[in-house]
């Protein structure tokens, strides 16, 4: 008989667990708490328990399900809200009320719902793993492609068109019965044909990302920042507005009320392209900070497996993980309970490799069905004390290609998005410059480079201004400070609560860029003619430029024309 011999927080040791294998899911104790075997020493199994272990008793039994920790995949994932181990939160609410009880089970995918299955192959076709068998209209935005399960190949002998439950047989391949429901172990990456290079930006409608530090479809991005800088708001804004097909949003160890905000906002918000509710392309995983720590550790993997499943259907997926630091802390906590030798700041020595493995599951791929699809990962990092030298931030920066550094000083000035333009970087600008120059406007890359150079110059000029005072500086330099201020206040800053400004299309971004560039050019001419910088600073024009982002494109075009006639 199996029996528990040690309990320490989320880590339990048990003797004689049957067929014990690392990675097996087990039911722990009389309540049947969900756990996973993570170590085996002789006849003892070490189990990480995904629920609180209070009241668990020595001697209680452990039952092995002999299955690895898996997600259920199939139609019905979109619009769902799950906990870290893919239990739907609304089903849990029906079962245990407003508070989450223990030992509850709930399947990730609704068994009672019927879907209209339209085959894409016919009897006699030879199919292989990952190929599209047929389609289901999952939501108003997304057509779910039912794939041939992993390891199944051969001739289609039967296929059943029409309305089915997810567990019904919809096709027979060789002798294998196939349903719409599949399971996948969360910790193993799903297979694809090959990784390819990204060539297209992920458009967010937020100027500081698109115009200054762009990412690509299939990119790896990190947003580190101390508390109160708007990490979560940033992530949510990207989830709302970015042009990915599917959003997987993992709230990992964060606030309950923030998830409520997402739950309330997303069904009401409309996709800027199609006008359909954003929730129709979204899967939410909410394992808040007060929910069990081991399930927090699992939540990012659950999210990633779901993201990969939609990628394999040929979609561009964006995965938000808020926050990877909480995930790392969950690892640290479990590692501590296992009495492992600690690495830096108590984090386990495998922190760096786990982070790398996670981010490497992002990227642009050729799927098994030979489609181009991608996963973009955007991970928030919450460095202790806002200190970027701590291990999670540092190990993340080793991997990611885009670094959006949030800045407490900017946030204190209510400069949103509080992205520090001097510290942030994107290694994708070569790719995106090309794309923007062709698809938006030929001067895009030039405007971007000019703007960056100007901001860089501003920071050194400001140092001088601190010493000698602004009035003592040459007129030209005073003017450069003015242009940089306009760049910061009118281009970099964006008002998420303004109806117009919350989403800035690329065409508008280009116009605003052009407006500032024209002002810069014409202003310099005026300065050379002897117009003092502080006169330009007091012009009505400055106010006009400031209002451009809230107004229609026409206003911008008009003002550019006016400025081209010369500034006096």
């Amino acid at each position, binding site marked *: 008989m199996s029996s528990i011999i040690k309990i320490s927080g989320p880590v339990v040791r048990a003797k004689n667990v049957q067929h014990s294998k690392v990675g097996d899911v087990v039911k722990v104790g009389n309540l049947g708490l969900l756990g996973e075997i993570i170590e085996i020493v002789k006849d003892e199994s070490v189990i990480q328990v995904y629920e609180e272990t209070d009241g668990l008793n020595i001697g209680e039994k452990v039952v092995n399900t002999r299955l690895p920790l898996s997600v259920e995949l199939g139609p019905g994932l979109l619009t769902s809200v799950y906990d870290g181990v893919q239990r739907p939160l609304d089903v849990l609410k029906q079962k245990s009320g*407003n508070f989450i009880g223990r030992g509850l089970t709930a399947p990730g995918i609704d068994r009672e719902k019927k879907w209209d299955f339209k085959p894409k192959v016919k009897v006699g076709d030879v199919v292989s793993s990952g190929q599209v068998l047929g389609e289901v209209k999952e939501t108003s935005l997304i057509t779910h492609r039912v794939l041939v399960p992993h390891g199944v190949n051969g001739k289609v002998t039967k296929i059943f068109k029409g309305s089915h439950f997810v567990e019904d047989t919809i096709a027979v391949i060789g002798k294998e019965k196939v349903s719409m429901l599949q399971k996948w172990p969360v910790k193993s990456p799903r297979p694809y044909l090959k990784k390819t290079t990204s060539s297209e930006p992920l458009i967010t409608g937020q100027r500081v990302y698109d115009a200054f530090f762009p990412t690509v479809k299939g990119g790896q991005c990190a947003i580190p920042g101390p508390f109160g800088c708007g990490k979560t708001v940033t992530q949510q804004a990207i989830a709302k507005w970015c042009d990915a097909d599917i959003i997987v949003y993992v709230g990992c160890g964060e606030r309950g009320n923030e998830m409520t905000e997402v739950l309330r906002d997303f069904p009401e918000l409309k996709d800027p392209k199609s006008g359909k509710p954003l929730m129709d392309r979204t899967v939410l995983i909410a394992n808040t900070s007060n929910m069990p720590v081991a399930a927090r550790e699992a939540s990012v993997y659950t999210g990633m497996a779901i993201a990969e499943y939609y990628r394999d259907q040929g979609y561009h997926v964006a995965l938000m993980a808020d926050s990877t630091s909480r995930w790392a802390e969950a690892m640290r906590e479990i590692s501590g309970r296992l009495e492992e030798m600690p690495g830096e700041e108590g984090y386990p020595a495998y922190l760096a490799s786990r982070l790398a493995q996670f981010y490497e599951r992002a990227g642009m791929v050729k799927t098994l069905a030979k489609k181009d699809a991608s996963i973009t990962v955007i991970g928030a990092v919450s460095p202790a004390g806002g200190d970027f030298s701590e291990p999670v931030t540092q190990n993340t920066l080793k991997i990611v290609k885009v670094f959006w550094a949030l800045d407490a000083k900017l946030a204190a000035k209510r400069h949103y998005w509080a992205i520090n333009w001097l510290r942030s970087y994107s290694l994708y600008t070569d790719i995106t410059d090309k794309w923007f120059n062709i698809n938006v406007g030929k001067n895009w890359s030039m405007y971007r480079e000019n703007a960056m150079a100007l901001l860089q110059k501003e920071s050194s000029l400001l140092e001088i201004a601190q010493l000698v005072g602004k009035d003592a500086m040459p007129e030209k330099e005073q003017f450069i400070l003015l242009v940089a201020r306009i760049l910061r206040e009118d281009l970099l800053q964006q008002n998420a609560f303004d109806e117009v400004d919350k989403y800035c299309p690329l065409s508008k971004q280009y116009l605003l860029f052009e407006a500032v560039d024209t002002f810069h050019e014409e202003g310099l001419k005026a300065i050379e003619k002897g117009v003092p910088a502080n006169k330009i600073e007091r012009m009505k024009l400055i106010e006009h430029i400031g209002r451009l982002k809230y107004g229609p494109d026409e206003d911008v075009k008009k003002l550019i024309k006016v400025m081209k006639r010369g500034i006096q």
Partner: protein
Amino acid sequence: MKVYKSLESVKGPLVVLENVTGVAYKEIAKITLKNGRTLTGQVLEVHNDKAVVQVFEGTQGISLKDVKVSFSGETAKLGVSKKMLGRVFDGKGEPIDGLAHYPDKFLDIQGEPINPSARIQPEQFIQTGISTIDLLTPLIRGQKLPIFTVNGLPHNKLAAQIARQATVLDKAKFSVVFCAMGISQSEKDFFIETFKETGALANTALFLNLASDPSVERIMTPRAALTAAEYLAYEQGHHVLVILSDMTNYCESLREVSAARQEVPGRRGYPGYMYTDLALLYERAGVIEGAKGSVTQLPILTMPGDDKTHPVPDLTGYITEGQIILSRELYKKSIMPPINILGSLSRLKVGKGQLRDDCGAVADQLYACYATGRELRDLVAVVGEGALTDRERVYLDFAESFEKQFVHQTFDKNRTIMQTLGVAWKLLGMFERTELKKISPKILEKYHKQ
């Protein structure tokens, strides 16, 4: 009930028992000493026939012999009843005011996590009557908004002022749960006196673990207090404001136990699981769908060495929905309450239609102007006021007036939100409209220099 006498060791706040059977994780134990004194403990770890028990009262006077330990078969529970208000409890939740207590039921003090899909987004404005809070960091029903303070500042006066002045717009049942962790007798007396004077004591339940009480018991205190708050909120329909003072003392107790268990320490010796532990407390604030009441938390924490990056304020800031920061500098300038709005923040927004339409924009604008003014103040220290432009000088003056007229209001002044807006617009009148970029032209037209 089995009684064990088999103590293996006593170390710090922990005792280890051997040859025990059927002991549950987190179970409550009763320890009886030779002289008849009984202590309470909780199981922290069980391994084969050994159990590690944390003793709340401390292990002073425990020997390996002549001690009897019995296990209750239950995890820690709090007896709750409708009549908890007006009562005083100790740090474990036992009444200490000498009156009888007849619990309606017993609730596990550990609580259970609120299902995120059962939560409602908090958005009901609580008017505290303090300008800086109401306009710039509004307190919302169901929020957890800590006060970050440093030694020697009047944070208790501020907390008492909030508890006294806080009004909700509808006439709902409102009560206070006060949870003291390691505060001094005089601080406790201050709160009780204040509550008594204003008649608030009848609507307050006090859970007291003072500096002189056993420090390990402090780990139970907020849990008991929050369990009472949840009962009052979700079963009795009260809007409960929980004041937790002082979270830094709580964390120190956590560290003490962790060190005694020889756990691998995280930053500054605090345990690696402190984030999770704090989240288990703070996340018990909220508004639940269908419930008449709510739990709002106002934790107070002292930043050791005035350091905001210290683990206690740092982890708290990551969990709570904003923070109110007190500043020594403002205090020395006799600005009361000395709230530094630059570091303060409330993440929650007041729901639409509750306040006048200009509140959000005015708040953003005050922030921006004050931040600029403060930066210039530093600059003046280097280059002198003469080096400033006229535009910059206005900002400098604004920062000064803002502190004296807006932030400063004393601890007994109760300003309505409309009065607060009045002061704000008067101050913004110092600027030309071109400078007020955060406010839309429509709103400027309506209120600027009117």
